[in-house]
Every structure is written in C-alpha cells, then in structure tokens.
C-alpha cells in the first residue's frame, strides 16, 4: 500500500494528483483506478475528470500508523463515494474523528502524503476534507 519509490509514485500521478476516473464504455460504471476488465465484460474505458465531491461511506481512525505517517497519527481514513459513482479510499484531514458521520459531504484537496526520510522525495496526492 505504501510505496517508497518516487518512480512508482510518479506512475500514479494521473489518479492521485489529478483525480482521474475511468468510465466503462458499455455499462458506464465509473472506477477510480484503471481496471483491465469490467464485471460487465467490457475492456474499454474512457478517462474522465472526477469532481472531487463525495460522501463518506465508511470511516475509521488510525492510531498505529506506518512509520512515515506516525507523526500525523491519529488520523482518519474513509471510504468515499464520489459524485460520479466511483469509490475511493483516502485520508480525511482538517477534522476530528468525532466530526465525521456516514454521509458527511467531503471534497478533495491536494496534500502532502509523506517524505521518504530527510533526504528522499516528498510525495503528494489527494486527501479529503469535510465540505465547508
């Protein structure tokens, strides 16, 4: 889940930096990450812009975080249903655990994920904040 290599991170910029989605040409279902095969049998997808607006479907608070996120713990992670229908798992920040509910409106923001130590690259991507 947690990639150290700046190159692997770089390959994910389209999804994580820009919040691109992939829409099945046949059944029109929208996915956050590129899929090879849609359950409907189609292998053809169109890249679409996701608005970044969504609602919390499930959430939890992380206390025992991986090393790179340790200093940020406790933090919230949620499964979010985006307005376009795709589902995404992401951190929800600028809030307390007690602020969140199932159905809370959230919006995407561009934030720092972590740094690979003092000399390594800094990794950025999409997190969510409660709508304000």
């Amino acid at each position, binding site marked *: 889940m947690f990639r150290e290599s700046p190159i692997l991170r770089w390959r994910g910029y389209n999804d994580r930096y820009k919040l691109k989605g992939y829409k099945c040409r046949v059944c029109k279902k929208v996915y956050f990450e590129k899929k090879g095969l849609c359950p409907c049998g189609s292998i053809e997808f169109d890249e679409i812009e996701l608005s970044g607006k969504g609602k919390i479907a499930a959430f939890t608070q992380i206390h025992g975080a991986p090393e790179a996120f340790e200093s940020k713990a406790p933090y919230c992670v949620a499964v979010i249903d985006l307005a376009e229908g795709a589902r995404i798992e992401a951190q929800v920040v600028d809030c307390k655990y007690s602020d969140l509910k199932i159905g809370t409106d959230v919006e995407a*923001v*561009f934030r720092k994920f972590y740094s690979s130590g*003092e000399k390594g690259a800094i990794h950025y991507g999409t997190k969510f904040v409660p709508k304000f």
Partner: protein
Amino acid sequence: MAGIVGWGSYIPKYRITVEEIAAVQGQNLKAIIDGLGLTEKSVPGKDEDAATIAVHASRDALKRAGINPKEIGAVYVGSESHPYAVKPTASIVGEALDIGNEYTALDTEFACKAGSGTIQINAGMVDSGMIKYGLGVGADTSQAEPGNALEYSAAAGGAAFIIGPKNGSVATLDFTASFTSDTPDFWRRALQPYPAHAGRFTGEPAYFKHVLGATNLILKKSGAKISDFDHIVLHMPNAKFPERAAKILGATPKQIEVGLVVKKIGNTYSGSSLLGLAAVLDVAKPEQKILVTSYGSGAGSDSFIFTTTNKILLVQKEARKVSEYIARKEYLGYAQYLKHMEEIHK
C-alpha cells in the same frame, strides 16, 4: 497590457492567537498587539506546504478563468518556503492542474515579493505573444524561530493569478513599476531553518523606502492621484506598516480596508499582498481602480494599477473568497502549534 483572467486564494484552517504566543514567551501582550496590529495568524496543517497551498489557490484561479488548463503556457511559483531546495514547486503545480507538458516553469524567490514578480513576467510574456495564458502564484508557510519577534506574524497562505489577453480579463493591468536596492534587512542563509533580520532597520530604510518608492513611481508614470483608487493594497508584514505607509501616501483608511487581511491571518509572506489583491477582486465592482504594492526584503517593491471590468461579476462566485477562508478556523495551543511547524518542514 495584459490582464487578470482568474484569481484564487487559500488560507489553512488553523490559527494561533498572539495572546497564546505572548503567554508562552512571557511577553507583554498589549505592547505586541499595539506594535503589530494583529491578534492571530494562520498555521498550516501538518500535511500542507507551499506546494499544496499553491495548488489549492491555482485550482480556484482556473475555475474563475474558465479556460482549458492546456492553454496555460507558463507556471511561476514564488515562495521563500519552497518544499525542495532543488526541484521546482512550479512543476508540481503544473502536474496537479493537468496543464500537460507544453509549458515553461520556474520557481521564484525574492522574500515576500516572489509572487508579485510573477505577474510582471506573465504580463510581459502575454503581451509579447510568447504565451496565451500564464499562471503566477505566491505561497508560503513562513518560518519563524520560536521566541523570535517574527513568531507573532509569520503565517501561511497564498494566492494565484492567471494572466491573459486584456480582452476577456476581469481586471486589466494598466501600469506596473518596480523599485529595487541591495538592502540587508532580512535574510535566510542556505541550509538555515529560520530567517534573521536587522530589527528596526526593517522599517524606514527597507519597507517604507521601497513601498513608497515604487508607489510614487507608478503614480508618476500613470499620472494617477492616490485619491483615484477604490482599493489600495500594500504589503502587510503586520497591520501597522501598511497603515502608516497609506497615511504617508495620503490614502484613507477606507481605501485600504478590504485588502488589509493581515489582522486575522498574519503575514503570509509571498502570499501577503496577493491575498490582499484577491480579497479586493472577490468583492470589487466593475470599473474600479486598484493599486497594489508588494515588498520583498533584500529589497524591492512591485507596484500595479488594475481596472476591473464587467466580467468580474460573472466569476466572483466561481470559487471561494478570501473571507470564507478567514472565517474557517480552528485554534491551536502553543504545543500543538509547534508540532504543526515541525511537521511541515520535515
């Protein structure tokens, strides 16, 4: 000349009061508030830095500009807290905005005027026909050593401006002028975490000489009088300096009121005068004249005269206003504040 086709702003949610800092430092609260004219400042979230602030403000600028990001031919980001010493913030912004690859990009640095300079560069590029649109940003998560006087005001925030052809702009750029000299009032040496400054020397020979120098120069160049302006924004290291400079220029408190955002958020360095300009554009009416003068230690000032167009009314609602970011806040205690500041410079 070119004009502003879209603007956006961003201020992190967290605040610390001057009272909280003064209590920890054992200093006289009243003397500090009287001296600076501000009561609280913004503090970045643990996962925010100049790049994330720049992306946020730029996305809002893009919403207001209503253009295809692929038409942006230049991205310049000014800051004194670029996340990397070597590796541009501007390319992170370009990538996050989906500008593609056919653009030129640079990070700029000139203390607190690194952002305002990007407006001049972009206007020159647009006017020469080199680019159609250019994005310029000023964003900072300012550093201040715990216990130093700067700790009361060094804040976080930023603003972004997309510059394009005059025709189609929300505010035309009518004149610009700069005033620069080698003045050692404030600096941060390479690899040092915190800046140093020359105390009182930051006033008369530094801030006032350059802000008044550039402003008087643009008034002379344009033939405008200070009373011609509906709004005036002067760089805000605190509230007292711009208030005093405005008085010397003969401006009224009402002319600087809308842009004087420092009182509730502190000095956002490269974001400071640009956030003042964004706050003015958020509420300006068509055909209003705006005067902006930035200041960067070291030292220099850039002055601008803008005139708003009818189009401004159509785009003001397309993104959040500076006042909405100022209103959204959560206070931190001093210990939490230190944790935030340690984290963002990791």
